[in-house]
């Protein structure tokens, strides 16, 4: 089946791409840190954005657009991890790039500590501390109660703070 692209079809995709661009850095951070690989990050974000586009007609504004998109990205990451059966296997090779104010040792320690965390703890630290989502927003993205966000965050911070000292 072929579809003819109409002017409105172009505008649909363009409007959606604008939204994607706005949140893309955060999504890349989450996907890359969960999956540990640039190729997988791109594959998963392609799939997640396509899913979100398909689901657009069902988005009714009850939740913030940011958390709605985040949740789709997070679920796509989990699907990919399940398929590959590697929920905890994260290569550090691609993570080791330049940092800014952190010294090299701190950065490597932090990356190692983050990579060693279970996916669920890694995600909550990235959402709340790196991306500054509220507990309620993070709960909505992760599909867990806000209380669980707090307890997971506490455990994640305990593990990560050590790397900065």
């Amino acid at each position, binding site marked *: *089946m072929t*579809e003819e*692209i*109409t002017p*409105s*079809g172009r*505008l*649909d*995709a363009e*409007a*959606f*791409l604008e*939204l994607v661009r706005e949140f893309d850095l955060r999504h*890349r*951070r989450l996907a*890359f840190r969960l999956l540990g690989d*640039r*190729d997988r*990050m791109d594959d998963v*974000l*392609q*799939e997640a954005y396509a*899913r979100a*586009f*398909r*689901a*657009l*007609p*069902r*988005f*009714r*504004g*009850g*939740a*913030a*657009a*940011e958390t709605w998109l985040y949740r*789709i990205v997070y*679920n796509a990451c989990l699907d990919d991890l399940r398929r590959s059966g590697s929920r905890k296997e994260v290569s550090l090779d*691609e*993570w080791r*790039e330049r*940092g*800014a*104010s*952190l010294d090299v040792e*701190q*950065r490597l320690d932090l990356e190692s500590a*983050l990579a060693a965390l279970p996916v669920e703890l890694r995600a909550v*630290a*990235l959402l*709340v501390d*790196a991306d500054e989502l509220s*507990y309620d927003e993070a709960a909505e993205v992760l*599909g867990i109660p*806000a209380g669980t966000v*707090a307890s997971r965050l506490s455990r994640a911070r305990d593990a*990560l*703070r050590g790397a*900065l000292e």
Partner: protein
Amino acid sequence: MTETHDKELGSALRELDVPEHHPDFEESLEHRLRRRSPRRTWALAAAAALAAAAIVALVMPRGSDVASAAQVREAVADAFASAGRVSGVFVNREGGGENRWSFVLDSSGSFRIKGLGKNNPTDLAYDSKTNVESWSDLGLFVRRTGLAPGWPDSSAAGWVVQRGLGSVVAALAASPDADVDEVEYAGRAAWQLHTPTGNPGEERLITVDKETGIPVRDARLRNGRPAGEWRIEQLQVDDEPAPTRFTLQRKPDQQPTAYDMGFRRASLREIAEMVGYELPVPAWVPDGYELDESAVARSSRPTGDEQHQNPPSRNVVSLRYRRGLDELVITTRSTGPGPSRWSDPVMGSSMRANPPERINVIGNPAWLVIDPNSVPHIWAIQGPHVVTIAGNLDRAELLRVAESLPR
């Protein structure tokens, strides 16, 4: 609960490198989005709504996000329209027993359904390119060719589609006012609807995955107690059609059996020459549907059920329009000498939960059937022909298609 943000840790996490996309990422995504934009006008409005919501959400508290039954139905229709492939494990539970099948449905119409476990040796495949269905079950190997494009004739719609996903579509169409609850199912956000089955004391509890719009569970309750269910596990919805092979090879120890169901694919012009009457080509179909198969049969199996079998079907024309996994099938066939001997070709009367609605279509009496036990459809006697229109359409769409048929 005190909410805290660890600013130092947050800053450190943000300093870690985040790779850029590959150079072709956005181009590839754009191509993908434009290719899969089945309801463009709607998507445009929704994109605008999303952009607005992103702004509004900054200044307004969140409201209720509970959808109506009509919106859930729209979500399911949209999911079927845009999916290239749906796969997973289909689980059927009846009378204390449970059977499982892995399945792949493809937007070309092909499918593969394979029993899981020692006691479930069924393997069923349909290749839409060749119009051949193969069925392997222990010592049996059945091959069906000449299959019809769809309702009400013998087609290759696997029972997973017909009895599973298709029945949910029918139930949603028949229950526009059903209550909808927001639930979590298998760790994912979902909608749950209570719909009647038409049997006293019985109801259905339908669960639809919110993110994909695919129905994932259909449970029957009798007097409030579980009376059977099917569900989909490991659901996966993809844009692209499946790379799966949809043909089976007969094993040496299997007994081969072959059936020809009588339909032959042909162009509209060829079919018109063969049957000698004007084809039921509608001037209007819903956005996104395209004609993907036209076929003709000199004769095919009678329609109807055991209680009322219709006269033999002669000079049958069947046109199928497709939008993703959705199908719309329009057929005509000769009434033969006794038009009054015909009853609903699509749905046997014994299955009926709702009475058919008597309507008029281009000046002829017709019956509109929106029933939880059947695909939504219209059927009519128009001169020397029986006409059927069946598909996952709402009432207004069905009527509009019917009114656009040639007089």
